[in-house]
């Protein structure tokens, strides 16, 4: 009886302390994140320039959106970006599995490979914009190598090459270093005796990769893939802004970039909110996948 009483008492103490400790986080996230996300749904049904009273117009923004080339261009570009994700996962995974046994000088390579994470997307976008420009070093190199009209080889100047360049830089190039370090850390948790046993069985490196390494770090591979989706849907603004500005035309628009342009450049805040609602649903799906992954891992 007394035991139960004290247990009940302890639980309520946990609750009291818990809410006090959570208060700062909850206040901040509810005010600055949840409220804007929720009110966004309402604004998507209004015509609103950001000043004065929003005017309720029902689903008009959505009708407009489904007839807007920029919207379809954004979806198509996101699709292209997603197509690069397998490469962005596989390349670091492969490098990490080759390096798994350790190698001399790895620290120097690691230092170089991780550099993009230190520099950040805004700096990288700015440098690449200069490097890939028509009067940049790449053009000069091609000219020196004897290509005539090298300035026509302007990767950011044509729609198809622009979105593919952006995708490669953002999804593969920028993430390789972090991916290697991430997967190496994950691989260090695999029991080394599994590889020794396989060696006795005479398996080759590829078989080890397929049958030991990949199943051994399944969670990390899934988690890294989800992170890549998050980056593509929700973290690309800085690089697009500095590298292409969404262009040429709308060739490198994504939903995220479009929301910004409509909202703060065209001052169509109501219409931008409709785009943001679509983006919300994409991100909600990604978030649910991630949460399921984390919960599954913690239960097992």
């Amino acid at each position, binding site marked *: 009886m007394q035991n139960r009483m004290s247990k009940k008492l302890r*639980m309520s*103490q*946990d*609750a*009291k*302390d818990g*809410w006090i*400790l*959570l208060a700062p*986080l909850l206040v*901040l*996230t509810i*005010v*600055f*994140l949840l*409220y*804007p*996300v929720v009110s*966004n749904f309402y*604004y998507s049904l209004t015509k609103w320039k*950001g000043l004065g009273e929003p005017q309720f117009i029902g689903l008009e923004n959505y009708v407009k959106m489904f007839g807007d080339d920029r919207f379809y261009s954004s979806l198509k570009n996101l699709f292209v970006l997603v197509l690069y994700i397998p490469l962005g996962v596989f390349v670091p995974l492969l490098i990490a599995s080759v390096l798994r*046994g*350790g190698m*001399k000088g790895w620290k120097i*390579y690691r230092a170089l*490979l991780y*550099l993009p*994470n230190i*520099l*950040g997307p*805004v*700096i990288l976008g*700015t*440098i*690449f914009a*200069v*490097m890939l420009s028509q009067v940049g070093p790449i053009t*000069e*190199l091609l000219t*020196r190598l004897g290509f005539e009209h090298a300035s026509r080889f302007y990767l950011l100047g044509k729609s198809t090459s622009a979105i593919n360049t952006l995708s490669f830089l953002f999804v593969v190039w920028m993430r390789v270093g972090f991916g290697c*370090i*991430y997967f190496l*850390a*994950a691989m260090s*948790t695999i029991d080394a005796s599994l590889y020794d046993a396989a060696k006795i069985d005479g398996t080759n490196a590829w078989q080890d990769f397929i049958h030991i390494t990949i199943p051994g770090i399944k969670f*990390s591979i899934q*988690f890294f893939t989800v992170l890549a989706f*998050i980056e593509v849907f*929700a973290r690309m603004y*800085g690089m697009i*802004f*500095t590298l292409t500005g969404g262009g040429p035309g709308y060739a490198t628009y994504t939903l*995220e*970039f479009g*929301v*910004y342009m409509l909202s703060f450049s065209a001052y169509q805040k109501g219409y931008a909110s409709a785009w943001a609602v679509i*983006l919300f649903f994409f991100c909600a799906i990604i*978030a*649910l996948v991630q949460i399921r992954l*984390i919960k599954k891992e913690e239960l097992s």
Partner: protein
Amino acid sequence: MNVNDRTTATPFGNHHMKERLRKRSLQSITYLLLSLFSLIIAYPIYYAIISSLKTTSDYTADKIGLPSSPTLENFSRVLTQMNMFSFLLNTLLVVGVSMVVYFLVCTAAGFAFGKLRFKGRLWIFTFVLFIQIFPQMVIAGQLYQLISKMNLLNTHIGLILVWVAYFAPFGTYIMTTYYSSIPKSLVESARIDGAGVFQQLTRIMIPIARPMIGTLGIIGALAMWHELPFSMLILQRQELRTLTLGIALMQGEFGLPTTVLTAAILVTSGVPLILYIIFQNYITMGSTAGSVKG
């Protein structure tokens, strides 16, 4: 941890030779590919360094080679004429204050989620995980209105609050996984000693989180240092700008020569690069916290 250690003597000399040869060639290919890869990754920063040391005419004449007569003129121009110095001070101030608040918010919430059991805990934790992936753009439009209604537009405090709100959920997740691994008896014995929740936080939980300060610092400070959209919305007056914002707007605003732009880039990444060179080991390993599991 060394590939070479694995070579063991076998009684079959021929087989041994062949095996060693294969291993050698595999190793050389690995080194070659890795070197090539590292060069490709490191080239942009190398390019920025050589360009920043060139004069405009030097750069126009040769965009690829080393500077023929290195000059620091671009850097002096960046620091004296272009507000970069005040951008740097703004960044250090905003990131510094944000990090202190961020650390306190994340430890407190991580303590609650990781060590205390109460109703609704799992739901709120799920909410936190859910909200942390949201793109800044879904929030930005309405956030701008909110911030201006609160009279926080063009204030560093506004940006600090928004940054902490946006980045704390992930930090909380990391702290939660950390605190779940320490024994609950610490909390219980502190309670028996009559320590309140704030004393538990300041005397036990924060000191115990010391190994995580680095990790949280790397993840949080890098994210803030690189942050663009919120700074762009909230800090519209030039004298308030951060480095990242300054550089992002520089391309269009000034129509600058590349040599000056690359110098500005190096000034912008200077602090992170120096810290990276000093704490390289720590930073690369710390960055995987909270998400690496077999």
